[in-house]
C-alpha cells in the first residue's frame, strides 16, 4: 500500500473507532516514511504510553518545528511526565519505609515500627495501610481514634477500621475497659485514674466492685514499685501488738477497783506481768520474720509449728490473770446477788 493510502486508511479507521488498526497502519507508515509529520501527529493520539506520545510529538516537531499547538501539547505532556516521575520517587521512598516498618514489627520492635509508620503517613497522608497499622500499635486511645478516622477518610468502607473505631468510642467512655487497656500497656497511673472514674461513674454494684478490685491491685503494684515508703520495724510491730491485751486488762482492773488504781491488790499487778508476757508471745507469732526469730529459725523465720507453740505458750501466760480477775468478779457478784 502506498503511504498516502496508509494514511487515508488509518484516518478512516480512527473515525470508525478502530484505534488498534489505525495504530498498526500508522506504525507501518512511519517505518516507510519517518518524516511524515501527519502520521506522527495521528500516532501521538493513538499510543497509550506517555513516553511514546512524547516521542511522537517530538518527531512531528523535528519535521516541522513551527507548530505552536503541537509545542504546547508536548510541553503539557512533559510536565505530566515530570509530575508522575516525582510522585513515583516519593512513593518509592514511602514504600521502602513502610516495608521497613513491617519488618521491624515482625521482629517485635514496636516502637521503631510506630516511628517509621509516622514518617510514612507524614510523607503520604493517604497511605491507608500505614494508618491502619499505626492504629493497632498506638496505645493512646485519642491517637488511635485519629488514625482510624484517617483510614476511613481514605477508605470509608474499611470494615476493620469501622469496627475498631466503634469499639474505641465505646471504650473511651467506658472507664473500666479503658483502665484494663492502660493496665495491659503497663500504664498503671492512668489505669488507676480510669478505675477511680469507673467506680464513680457506674451505678451497678457488681461493676463498682470489679473496678474497686482492679483499683486495689493497681495500687498494690504501684506501692510495690515505690521505694520511698517508710519502713516499720519488726520490733516496733511486736511492741505495738503486745500492748492490746494489757490495755484491756488494765481497764478491767480500773473498773474492778472502783476507778481507783490504788485499790488494786498486788496480785493483780503480778497478773499484769503475766498478761504482758503472754501478749508479747502472741504478738511475736504475728511477726514471724523478726530478726530474733530469724537468728533462731533461719532466714524463713518462725514456721507454722513454731508459731502454734509460741501462741499456745502465750495463752498459757495470758489467760490465767483474766480468768482470776473474772472469778474474783463472779465471787463479788454472788455476794451482791444475795442482797437483791
Amino acid at each position, binding site marked *: 500500500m502506498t503511504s498516502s493510502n496508509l494514511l487515508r486508511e488509518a484516518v478512516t479507521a480512527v473515525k470508525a473507532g478502530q484505534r488498534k488498526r489505525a495504530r498498526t497502519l500508522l506504525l507501518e507508515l512511519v517505518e516507510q516514511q519517518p518524516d511524515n509529520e501527519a502520521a506522527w501527529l495521528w500516532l501521538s493520539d493513538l499510543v497509550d504510553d506517555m513516553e511514546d506520545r512524547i516521542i511522537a510529538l517530538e518527531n512531528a516537531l523535528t519535521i516541522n518545528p513551527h507548530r505552536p499547538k503541537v509545542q504546547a501539547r508536548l510541553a503539557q505532556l512533559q510536565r505530566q511526565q515530570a509530575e508522575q516521575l516525582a510522585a513515583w520517587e516519593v512513593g518509592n521512598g514511602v514504600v521502602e519505609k513502610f516495608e521497613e516498618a513491617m519488618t521491624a514489627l515482625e521482629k517485635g520492635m514496636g516502637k521503631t515500627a510506630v516511628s517509621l509508620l509516622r514518617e510514612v503517613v507524614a510523607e503520604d497522608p493517604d497511605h491507608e495501610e500505614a494508618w491502619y497499622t499505626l492504629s493497632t500499635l498506638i496505645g493512646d486511645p485519642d491517637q488511635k481514634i485519629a488514625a482510624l478516622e484517617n483510614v476511613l477518610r481514605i477508605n470509608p468502607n474499611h470494615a476493620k477500621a469501622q469496627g475498631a473505631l466503634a469499639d474505641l468510642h465505646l471504650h473511651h467512655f467506658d472507664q473500666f475497659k479503658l483502665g484494663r487497656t492502660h493496665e495491659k500497656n503497663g500504664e498503671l497511673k492512668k489505669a488507676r485514674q480510669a478505675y477511680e472514674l469507673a467506680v464513680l461513674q457506674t451505678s451497678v454494684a457488681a461493676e463498682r466492685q470489679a473496678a*474497686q478490685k482492679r483499683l486495689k491491685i493497681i495500687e498494690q503494684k504501684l506501692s510495690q514499685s515505690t521505694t520511698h515508703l517508710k519502713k516499720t520495724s519488726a520490733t516496733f510491730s511486736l511492741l505495738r501488738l503486745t*500492748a*492490746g491485751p494489757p490495755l*484491756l486488762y488494765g481497764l478491767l482492773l480500773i473498773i474492778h477497783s*472502783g476507778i481507783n488504781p490504788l485499790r488494786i491488790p498486788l496480785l493483780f499487778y503480778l497478773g499484769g506481768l503475766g498478761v504482758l508476757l503472754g501478749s508479747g508471745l502472741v504478738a511475736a507469732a504475728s511477726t514471724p520474720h523478726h530478726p530474733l526469730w530469724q537468728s533462731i529459725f533461719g532466714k524463713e523465720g518462725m514456721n507454722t509449728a513454731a508459731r502454734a507453740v509460741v501462741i499456745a505458750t502465750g495463752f498459757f501466760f495470758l489467760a490465767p490473770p483474766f480468768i482470776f480477775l*473474772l472469778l474474783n*468478779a463472779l465471787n463479788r457478784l454472788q455476794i451482791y*446477788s444475795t442482797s*437483791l
Partner: protein
Amino acid sequence: MFFIPYNDIETNRYTSLPFMTLAIIIVNTLLLAHTFLMMLAEPYEFERFIYLYGSIPTLILSRQGGGALSGITHMFLHGGIFHLFSNMLGLWVFGRRVEDACGPWRYLVFYLVCGVFADIVSTMTRVGDPIPGIGASGALFGLMGAYLILYPRGRIRIFLLILLFRYRFTLRAYWVILYFLVFEFISGFQVLFADTDFQVLHWAHLGGFFASMFIFLFLRPDAFHRYRNDLPL
C-alpha cells in the same frame, strides 16, 4: 426524721467474711432473746438479771457487784428490739472493715477495750446513779471512731425518712460520723453543764469514741504499714 446508715459499700482487703462481727451480732441477739423469754416467764428475774450484769456506777465505785465482769457483760445486753437493732446495724456498717484491718481476734479485744473504756467514762459522769447502763453503743462508737481514722472517705449507704418521704443515697463516712458526733457532744455537754437527764448515756458514746485512738495497737502489720505510708487500706 430518721437518718439511718445501713451499709458500707466498700470491699474488704484481707478477708471477705467478717466472722467476729457476725459472732458478736449473734451473741447479742441470743442474749436479747434469752432476756425476753426471762421477762415472759419471770419479770422479776429479768430486772434482777439487768441489775446483776448491767453497769451501775454506785456499785462500781463502791466495789460491789460484778466489777470487771459487768464491764464486759453490760455491752452484750440490750433494752429492746429497737435498741439491739440500731446497735447491731451500726456494728454491721462500721465493724466489718475495722475487723478486716485488725484481724478477728484483735478486733474482738479492741471492741472490748472500747466498751470498757466507754463504761469507765460513763461511770465517771454518772457518779451516784443507781440505774444500770446496758448496750453496745459505747463499743460501737469506738468502732465508728476507728472507721473514721482508717477509712474517712469510705462510702456509707444512707436511708433518710422525712415525714412520708424516703430517700436513699451514699455519703462519705466523715459526714455520717460527724452527724452522730455533733448530737453526742451537744447532749454530753447538756448532761455536764445543764444537768439534763437523758435515757441514753451520751458520755458512754463519747468515751467509746475517744477509745478509738487505741486502734493503732490492734491493726495488722500490713494495715499499719499502709496507713503509715498513706496507702489505701
